[in-house]
């Protein structure tokens, strides 16, 4: 579709994000919550909705909800309520999901995002607690489906944004910021592939300048950043095409088919579920008293943007470098650990960005999936600073450390890299040898062509790469001028 046509319209996007909370047990029972276990081994009467079973709220899940609310400057309600949301599905054991409806845990709030080098704020509608469903498996060519209830009842926080996004990219930036936030808070591992962070979007378009919102459609199954971006672009273009052809958008729910690269309608407004919400009679009012909120606030983890600013203030990093290092909580932790163990902040920042992140990117690994500990990196930086390792050698040694997790000394031995020569008489011998071998250049230098000094350093280093360039300069100067 041509850009001119697209430019006539403004898109209006809102996101609903399900955050799987990293609690040890489920939202409403003490059945263990874990990923990747044998099917149907993490259940109990509550999870399976056996007759007579009753829900009991997980305190930690509420605490995690409070954390998100605090981190997004939401208003936490001291009284909130659980409600039943009804629909039949094999992976929904009770025939209803316990969620929050009219009185959610928190409302309002905002998430600060960086997008196209601009800082903006996305308003949140609400944050509420609920439970996850189990998982259905469909096998190709077989007229049956299989259900695993391990995930059923896992604690979720749903974060609903206002329709504040004007482009798919901005929506993705928000989703990234949210992912970063929940990982910083330590309440979710943010793994979209495993489904611990899931995203639905609603989107509409309107001619630029028009106040009134267009008819929206809801997109489901957006389980990667890429899917969010592609699906939204696809859907926006579909809306534009419909309207340009004189048609209209039908309010409906669509599924993103990543393989086909298109959205497909799963139900229209007429077929929409009638959830028959009503207050959950099995759970009294959820009380979150002020002192509890204050307690959680007092121990709240440092937030990404705060940490970024601190890195600038405390370590003298540029805002850009601080941004890179704080992007992932794990990386920021790694950096600070290296500094704590004696690494020079700027050198550490430089090394991590130019060497470590390059290697990680090449391998598609995360900082936790490589064996070089902050301790050995701090050691490497210290040896560079003392001149014990040349920059070039440090790079070679560092890469090997990254691959093997070995210490500086182990790698140096393995690669036969000796420490630089410390004995000045030995260095002097090499220098004299070079000077003697280049009588012309020596003469020109001594006549005043000081620029040739670099040539001599190069020649000396060529004899033995393990020499310390600083020591070589010092001795060479003496030999040439003496």
């Amino acid at each position, binding site marked *: 579709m041509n850009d001119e046509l697209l430019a006539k319209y403004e898109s209006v996007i809102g996101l609903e994000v399900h955050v799987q909370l990293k609690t040890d047990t489920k939202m409403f029972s003490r059945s263990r919550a874990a990923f990747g276990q044998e099917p149907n081994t993490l259940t109990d009467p509550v999870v399976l909705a056996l007759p*007579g079973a009753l829900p009991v709220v997980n305190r930690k899940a509420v605490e995690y909800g409070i954390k998100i609310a605090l981190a997004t400057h939401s208003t936490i309600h001291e009284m909130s309520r659980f409600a039943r949301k*009804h629909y*039949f599905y094999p992976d929904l054991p009770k025939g209803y999901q316990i969620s929050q409806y009219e009185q959610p845990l928190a409302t309002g709030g905002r998430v600060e995002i960086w997008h196209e080098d601009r800082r903006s704020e996305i308003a949140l509608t609400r944050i509420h607690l609920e439970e996850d469903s189990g998982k259905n498996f469909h096998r190709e060519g077989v007229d049956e489906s299989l259900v695993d209830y391990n995930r059923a009842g896992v604690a979720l926080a749903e974060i609903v944004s206002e329709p504040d996004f004007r482009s798919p990219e901005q929506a993705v930036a928000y989703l990234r910021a949210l992912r970063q936030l929940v990982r910083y808070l330590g309440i979710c591992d943010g793994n979209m592939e495993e489904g611990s962070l899931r995203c639905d979007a609603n989107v509409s378009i309107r001619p630029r300048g028009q106040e009134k919102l267009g008819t929206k459609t809801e997109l489901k199954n957006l389980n990667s950043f890429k899917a969010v971006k592609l699906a939204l672009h696809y859907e926006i273009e579909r809306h534009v095409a419909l309207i340009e052809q004189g048609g209209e958008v039908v309010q409906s729910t669509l599924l993103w088919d990543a393989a086909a690269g298109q959205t497909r309608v799963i139900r229209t407004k007429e077929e929409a579920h009638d959830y028959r919400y009503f207050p959950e*009679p099995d759970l009294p009012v959820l009380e979150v008293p002020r002192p509890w909120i204050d307690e959680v606030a007092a121990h709240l983890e440092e937030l990404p943007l705060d940490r970024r600013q601190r890195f600038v203030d405390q370590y003298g990093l540029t805002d850009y470098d601080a941004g890179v290092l704080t992007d992932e909580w794990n990386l920021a932790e790694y950096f600070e650990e290296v500094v704590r163990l004696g690494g020079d902040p700027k050198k550490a920042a430089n090394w991590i960005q130019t060497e470590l992140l390059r290697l990680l990117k090449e391998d598609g690994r995360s900082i936790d999936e490589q064996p070089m500990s902050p301790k050995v990196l701090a050691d490497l930086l210290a040896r560079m600073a003392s001149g014990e390792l040349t920059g070039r050698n440090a790079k070679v040694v560092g890469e090997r450390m990254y691959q093997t997790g070995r210490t500086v000394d182990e790698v140096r031995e393995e690669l036969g890299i000796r420490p630089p020569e410390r004995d000045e008489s030995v260095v002097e011998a090499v220098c004299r040898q070079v000077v003697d071998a280049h009588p012309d250049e020596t003469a020109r230098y001594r006549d005043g062509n000081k620029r040739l000094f670099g040539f001599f350093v190069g020649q000396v280093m060529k004899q033995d790469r393990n020499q310390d360039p600083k020591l070589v300069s010092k001795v060479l100067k003496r030999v040439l001028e003496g």
Partner: protein
Amino acid sequence: MDIWQLGLASQVEHVRTKAVSAEDVASAYFERIEAVDDRIGSYLRLDREGAMAQARMVDEQVRAGRDPGPLAGACIALKDIFVTKGVETTCGSKILEGFVPPYESTVSERLKAAGAVILGKANMDEFAMGSSTEHSAYRICRNPWDLDRVPGGSSGGSAAAVAAGLCGVAMGTDTGGSIRQPAALCGVTGLRPTYGRVSRYGMIAFASSLDQGGPMGRSAEDCALVLEAIAGRDPADSTSLDEPVGRYQEACRTGFKGMCVGIPKEYFREGLDPQVEAAVRRGIETLAANGATIKEVSLPHTEYAIAAYYIISPAEASSNLARYDGVRYGYRARDASDLMDMYCRSRAEGFGSEVKRRIMLGTYVLSAGYYDAYYGRAQKVRTLIADDFRKAFEDCDVMVTPTSPVTAFKLGSRMSDPLQMYLADMYTISCNLAGLTGMSIPCGMDGQGLPIGMQVLAPALGEERLFRVAAGYQRLTDWHRRWPEVAQAQEAE
């Protein structure tokens, strides 16, 4: 006198003092059940093996000089709404046929921990929906006083078992009167505790905000003994009350002298059988003649209780029964063409007509566009009803009313008109809506020899007041000591 004719406290005392073994008590009951229950149908299932094993354990403890618990050897008929680990639990429904729970209800666990012996699972209306036990999917349950009549419901099996001497005490549940009404119709004593007093964990839900389990026995004292053992906070039930358990047995001995008994005038109007009214009024006179003050009170919103109840309870039921879908347990229709067909047919074939009616009603009142007019409004009316009681209880300690407007009716006589059946709950429903506690005690017989029940109501956690009045009354009368003819049959043979 045979052991089964003794009161529960006395039976327990016999077991604890080795006068009789728990095993002998249980055997005696099983013999009686064998001989009599064919004609009554109070049990759906017996757990002879489990009961005898438990009885032997109690006896061993007695022999070893250890405390066998306050309910040592007490033989219990457990309404089939309480799940029992390893023992089929159906809630009176085909949809749960063959369901063997892998866990135990808190109530039955506490009963066993107190030394009680669970004889079997008592008959009931399917999912506790009904007032006659005619909605049991398995067998007819008859009133021991007249085998052509209903025992009431939904805890009809429990009431009939107590009335016929087929258990020491029974456990029932009461959502709109399901303990008190069958207790009245069978001439036994039935207590509905305050909502949250007894754990609902493992008690199959009908209407979660109204359901409450409680004892049904031959006397207020027997009920007090059981309630002390099962009441109290349960971490598995978020609505269970974290309040100290009362001294119910002691309250039974205190008597009602000096108490003020309120008589709600709205409970003595049209629809009330004159014989029932006369018996209840005589009961009130007995209280007045023995030291109670009588005072007329008013509950102006009484006429709205049934309407509110028949919105709230089906709404919650429609939700609670969504889990019976043929997927994880229970009945599944054969040869379904697809998932939707499997769902709809499993539920259509698995549920009985009354249950389906309530699911339909509940689904309707919660569906889009109707919530405010029905469920929302009913919950507000519920507040008005609760306020009525709050005000009335400022002027009295307890209230006394009829339990049921009529005595036991003929089997089949009310099946064709659901609304008429619902109206039978008119005196019991408000207690559930307002979160009160209530008890039904026998207070007379009608001209056909059918028992009449008198209801005593108290504010939330006022169980001790109920026991003071009921036990005091039972010391002055003998209505609760009578046995129907069928109970004597074993000896006649």
